[in-house]
């Protein structure tokens, strides 16, 4: 029977649910943490058809599948098994007509099939009968990333200190899938080591594309040429493309500009967050950054960025020299 509950559970409750309750015929998974969603799908697979490859495990993708195809597959009986698992990834890409067909299926699902609809766009699924399904939201509260990271390291058999976890998050961001990838690499590198130090993390972990840009902008705001050139040469040593570095600097300054305008126009914070499409944590750093630059500074900087962009695209001289000039110019007082 379908559990008629208007539930919106967090991802952490999924494990408890799967241990305590029977499998629901329809699940709706939402949220931006792919790692947690995939873990949930994997758990479902184990519970329904077993861990190995199985003919009763079918995966559809929203951009290529049709509602009829999915509903038909879900409505057929499993072969040589009690249950069948049908997973629809990127379900948000299904057309409205297809979603309507699935809506009808959700209203009266097959009891021998478990249908898992995975919505990855972070929006509320457009399903009329969503209340008939069991929903889990796999977004991670910002404060939980640290503890989740440490727990993931523990599951790989080593200890990651709080400081180490903070460093890792600062380098790779808050996506658990990325964190998991890096933790796996670290566990492989330090085979047998029970504790991972910060130096290992810094050497092996890929740097977030934007981490350096934040440091660079911080240095520019302080007119600290030494620090800014240090970051730039580090990027160069890593083989970063100057145009890519420039685009990231420009992206950040555009954000700073937008943020400054919105704050000066006294737009409420909630509205700013919505307009800027960012979390309040990220907004905090942005609002701090915007204080460091006057409108005059921003106009000057944007002009310099535009000029540099042009030069990087048409100039004959090595691009890293042009970027060096830009950084020196941005760090100068006027």
């Amino acid at each position, binding site marked *: 029977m379908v559990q008629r509950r208007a539930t919106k559970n967090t991802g952490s409750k999924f494990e408890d649910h799967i241990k305590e309750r029977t499998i629901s015929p329809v699940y709706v998974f939402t949220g931006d943490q*792919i790692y947690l969603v995939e873990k949930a799908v994997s758990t479902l697979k184990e519970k329904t058809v077993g861990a190995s*490859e199985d003919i009763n495990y079918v995966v559809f993708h929203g951009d290529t599948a049709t509602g009829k195809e999915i509903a038909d597959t879900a409505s057929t009986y499993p072969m040589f098994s009690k249950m069948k698992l049908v997973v629809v990834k990127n379900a948000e890409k299904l057309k409205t007509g297809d979603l309507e067909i699935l809506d009808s299926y959700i209203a009266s699902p097959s009891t021998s099939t478990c249908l898992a609809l995975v919505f990855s766009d972070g929006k509320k699924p457009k399903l009329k009968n969503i209340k008939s399904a069991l929903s889990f939201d796999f977004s991670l509260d910002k404060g939980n990333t640290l503890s989740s990271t440490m727990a993931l390291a523990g599951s790989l058999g080593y200890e990651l200190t709080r400081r180490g976890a903070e460093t890792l998050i600062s380098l790779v961001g808050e996506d658990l899938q990325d964190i998991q990838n890096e933790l796996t690499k670290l566990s*492989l*590198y330090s085979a047998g080591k029970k504790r991972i130090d910060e130096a290992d993390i810094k050497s092996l972990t890929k740097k977030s594309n934007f981490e350096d840009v934040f440091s660079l902008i911080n240095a520019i705001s302080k007119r600290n*040429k030494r620090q800014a050139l240090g970051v730039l*040469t580090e990027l160069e*040593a890593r083989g970063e493309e100057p145009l890519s570095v420039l685009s990231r600097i420009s992206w950040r300054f555009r954000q700073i500009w937008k943020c400054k305008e919105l704050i000066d126009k006294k737009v409420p914070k909630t509205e700013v967050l919505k307009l800027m499409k960012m979390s309040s944590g990220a907004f905090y750093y942005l609002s701090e950054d915007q204080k460091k630059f006057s409108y005059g500074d921003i106009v000057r900087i944007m002009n310099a960025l535009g000029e540099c962009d042009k030069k990087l695209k048409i100039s*004959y001289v090595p691009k890293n*020299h042009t970027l060096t000039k830009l950084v020196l110019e941005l760090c100068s007082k*006027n």
Partner: protein
Amino acid sequence: MSYLVLARKWRPKTFDDIVGQDYITQTLKNAVSSGKTAHAFIFSGPRGVGKTSTARIVAKALNCEKGPTPDPCSECTFCQEISEGKSLDVIEIDAASHTGVNDVREIIENIKYLPTSGKNKIYIIDEAHMLSQSAFNALLKTLEEPPPHVLFILATTEVHKIPVTILSRCQRYDFKKVTVEEIRQQLKKITSKESVNIDDETLYLISQEADGSVRDSLSLMDQLIATFGSDIRHEEATSILGILDKALIKSVLKSVLENNPKSSIESLNNAIEKGISPRRFAEDLLKILRYSVLVKTCGKSVISELSEEEITDIEKLTSKVNAESLESLFNLMLEEAENIQKSFYPQMALELTLIKLSTMERIVSIEDIISKIESLSGSSKPGYGKSASMDEHRVDYKKKETPTDIEPTPIEKAPAPIEKPEDPKPPEPEAKESMPQGNQKVGFIKFIKDKKRILGTRLEQANEIVIEESRIRIICDMGSPGALYLKRQESKEALKNFSGEFYSRDMRIDIEETDSPAKKDGGEKMQSNNIKEQKAVNRKKIHDDPIVKEAEEIFGGRVIDIKPN
């Protein structure tokens, strides 16, 4: 059998052969030995750093007869087939020429089949960033849940072009540029095994030229071996590769910093005679100027591509020049390098650039001037002060032209000008009466500089600034860049606005041009009784100056007369 180029002959066969990527190779070795190999890797980094080689070694490690092993034997059929690119189970795809979704669909169609003879089916997708968006989408679905016998290795030089959805499905390894020293060591190893005689300095030059790419360094070595055989001499190597001798470029930098255009042109001619193209010369000069700025601003730690010795050389060369001057030299060279590259007459353009660089006035920061004034005003004796650096000399020479800019009471406190014109013009009474204190003028220039740096700099370069009750007279050399800039309408308007703001009254701005640098301030401001006395003191100071003494010693001459610069 035809000659096998060094890059292919010495292509790494095991993880230990990979140069300069220790963290990555160690992790991959551990992954293979522990059986925890990811189902998809992405190897990113600049060209020639070992991405494709590592991918092949991973394939060998997994499919080797003795494997999976972190040390593939490179002798078994599987290993040899992989090395020769013949293995049916290791499929190398050049994404640059297979960009479409149909190419990826073909892969997807085939992955369901088990490997023919090896243990795993490995897809190496080179230049993966070239795949189209739809190809990436098609690949993504397979990367999410590939069959257990399949491993994907994506290699790319432009990882930012790979969608994040793909990146998060792969274990990512960022390959770094190989350091100059590591390349040099590798070249040394290879040349000794190939019985090639080559000195360390040439190896070092080649390593630098390779820009972090081992493959490039081996290609350069190939070129030399093809030309000179097994005995390669430094001069020949530099000429055939078109590499500019570092000593030569350093001597040019020295000439530029010493404001010696003659010597810099001589060095250029020397390089041209050796077959160095002017464009290459300009590039190298630009590069060394950039290094100089970096070393001066950040210290030696930021430059990994230079040897300790080279950094020390740069430090010595630039020890007497401040960071601002180096920056302006770098900026000028950057602009001119562009023109040289485009020019039909690059040599001429380069000569002109060298003259510009060698005659360029050094920038003196306001902070330097203020600290100088402070240090001088602390001294009871008037005079020239310590001549600690070349720049300090320049400060003082500049100062002599506009002493009132920086010295509140030149006669009593500040060092007297080095010399003064023989017949100083009588001071203009109006100007003299209404002239504010020197420090006020310094403050004015600083204020303008804070508002608009370029305007402030141009103002600093003026021969004289006379501030009267309701007008400011700025005297510049006829046709000088400063005069041209200040005469612009927008500059005058900006000056008018800023001066109004600074003096809290409307000021008229007059830009006056003179035929020669203004030479009147010192004398004008000195009382006639003091002039002779002051002049004598200054002459003595100049004579006693260690640099002047050194110059006398070098040239075997003596100072006959002292004239303004």
